[in-house]
């Protein structure tokens, strides 16, 4: 269980507070107007945004003091998820061993993760030689390989077309199911939330609200979400 207890983030004039829990294995969409603080919230959980006060717990142990890599999570950013000068194989292998010195067993598991995300045969390519969908797959292959219990997605598929995005969301769902991970995913599109996430967490008016069932929330949105959805 992920618990954000009396969380408060202050950046200049911007403030965001949160006091909520997310149960194990939940799939939570994070929605809200631009600039409301969705990325800030995810960044705080990942360890990139400092807390003004409050506590983040994962299964009853505090994680808010840990450096990003020591937290029990994998994160995908909007872009710059792959290093352009490394091959697809190395980019994915970074998730297993950041020094890129792999044992035979580790090499095999990298190849397996590539195969499971539909990238077999592309391991020697550089990111520049990949399509947008393949770049997303490579990022997801690394998430799969790391198999951390919490997956954070900061809109990594925003630049993909609708059909491709749907494919990627299904892949995310499969990976979350295989690894048993809890998912937090920022999205602008209610259809994404409906497709993948049983719950939705609204960030608006300086507050991250507790997750609510997605369908119910979208059918009867509170004023802030209603204004955003139009």
């Amino acid at each position, binding site marked *: 269980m992920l618990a954000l207890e009396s969380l408060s983030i202050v950046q200049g004039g911007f403030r965001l507070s949160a006091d909520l829990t997310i149960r194990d294995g939940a799939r939570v969409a994070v929605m809200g107007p631009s600039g409301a603080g969705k990325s800030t919230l995810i960044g705080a959980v*990942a*360890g*990139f*945004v*400092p807390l003004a006060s409050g506590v983040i717990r994962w299964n009853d142990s505090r994680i808010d003091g840990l*450096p*990003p*890599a*020591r937290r029990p999570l*994998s*994160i995908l*950013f909007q872009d*710059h*998820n792959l*290093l352009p*000068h*490394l091959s697809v194989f190395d980019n994915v292998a*970074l*998730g297993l061993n*950041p*020094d*890129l010195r792999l044992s035979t067993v580790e090499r095999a598991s990298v190849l397996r993760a590539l195969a499971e995300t539909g990238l077999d045969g592309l391991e020697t390519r550089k990111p520049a030689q990949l399509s947008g969908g393949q770049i997303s797959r490579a990022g997801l292959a690394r998430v799969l390989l790391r198999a951390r219990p919490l997956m954070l997605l900061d809109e990594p598929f925003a630049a993909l077309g609708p059909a491709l995005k749907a494919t990627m969301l299904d892949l995310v769902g499969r990976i979350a199911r295989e690894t048993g991970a809890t998912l937090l995913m920022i999205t602008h599109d209610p259809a994404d939330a409906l497709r993948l996430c049983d719950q939705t967490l609204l960030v608006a008016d300086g507050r991250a609200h507790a997750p609510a069932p997605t369908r119910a929330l979208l059918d009867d949105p509170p004023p802030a979400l209603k204004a955003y959805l139009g």
Partner: protein
Amino acid sequence: MRWHAEPRLIKPAAALVAAVLVLLNLGALAAVLWRADGEATLQPADWVALRFTVVQAALSALVSVVLAVPVARALARRRFPGRRLLIALMGAPFILPVLVAIAGLLAVLGRNGMVNDALAALGLDRVSLYGLQGVVLAHVFFNLPLSVRLLLQGWARIPAEHLRLAQALGFGARARFRLIEMPMLTRIAPGALAAVFLICLTSFAVALMLGGGPAATTLELAIYQAFRFDFDLGRAALLALVQAGVGLVALGVLGFVRLPATRQAGLDRLAPAPPGGLARVLDLLAISMAATFLLVPLGVVIARGLPHLADLPASVWAAAGRSLGVAALSTLLLAGFTVALTLAGLRRRWPEGLGMAALVASPLVIGTGLFIVLNPLVAPSTVALPVTALVNAAMALPFALRATLPPARQTEADFARLSAALGLSPGAHLRLILWPRLRAPLGFALGLGAALSIGDLGVIVLFGQTGTETLPLAMQRLMGAYRSEAAQGVAVLLLALALGTFVLVERLIGGRDAGA
């Protein structure tokens, strides 16, 4: 925001580099101040030198930038075979040893050069390459290409839409210049003028070879003369103080003017077809005249020097060996300085300011200061080569930092979060993220530093004696002794070494694809 602990070594290393640079600059100035506190006073000739320094730098800047306008415009809008090569060659004067260029200019425009021989054959008076016109001409030779490259940036940044708009609205040449090109030039040209002005302000080798005499002496040259001919350390120190003051004022000016970037991008965007007719003829003229001006002197030097390469005296080869040693040491120092300040500069602002501060004291000022400090301790000639290497590294540092810091900061902005999320160790971060992104600019910067060091004729003239001369000093002495055939042979050797070390270092550090 930073999520990585900075490796512990970086801060002390950067502090050490900072201490060396500050000591080199301020220490030299302090030594000079201490020594100047004597009987010595500035003579009227010294004020003439100050005026000449400023006037020649201003004229050089003005002529270079004004001439660069039609050349840059022609290169920006015409497509022809060899265009890329020509633009690349415009970067070559950076690594061209000053003496080689001067030898070329003398071969074409000197007293017994091709042009004067032609004038004489026509029964006309010979023109002189010495004095103000010679100094300015040589500076234009070096800085016209630089100005062209800077202005090309400006043309490359004019949105293609504006050019299409100009065509759609039926602008004539005059309206296009006034409404589209002129606004760009008023933004770019001041930076180009300032850059050339600053470079020419500390000109020494050009003034040494083509200037001289009461009417054409720069401050740097006056320092050298007070030092070498009168051994009047007090006066040399006073002059060094004036030169440092000029440098300080110039650095202040630099604070107001934005120096344009030298990188080029987007030169091959789709723009509407350029105007034909007269404009076409003028463009052709601008390009061919610039190419002639830049290429013919070098071609002549190479053609005349090659036959003499085989019978160069042994002392020249020894000097070449010393020059390579100096360049190697200088490049190592530069690499250390650059890496330490770049890594430290990822999270602070002061390293680049410090790198620029190396411009306050000119090479001859630093040389004079070091001489004053070292003279009571050791025979100056015994430290001539290490001192030259150190000063060369300090002088190349601002350029190196300008090449490495922006991509380093960009890389950090793009990938520091990823690195933190994956838990890369500082070593892995350096090896997997920073090094692959920085080796190309670092290779370029170090190659440039190596070539500059090979071709440098500066502080060595204060320290060097027979037995410790570098290749440029050997060449200068041959030219001074009117042994022009041997000098031309040395010029070819010097050119080959400068180009060779540039390419070697760039490829070695930058990897196979560097410069491609």
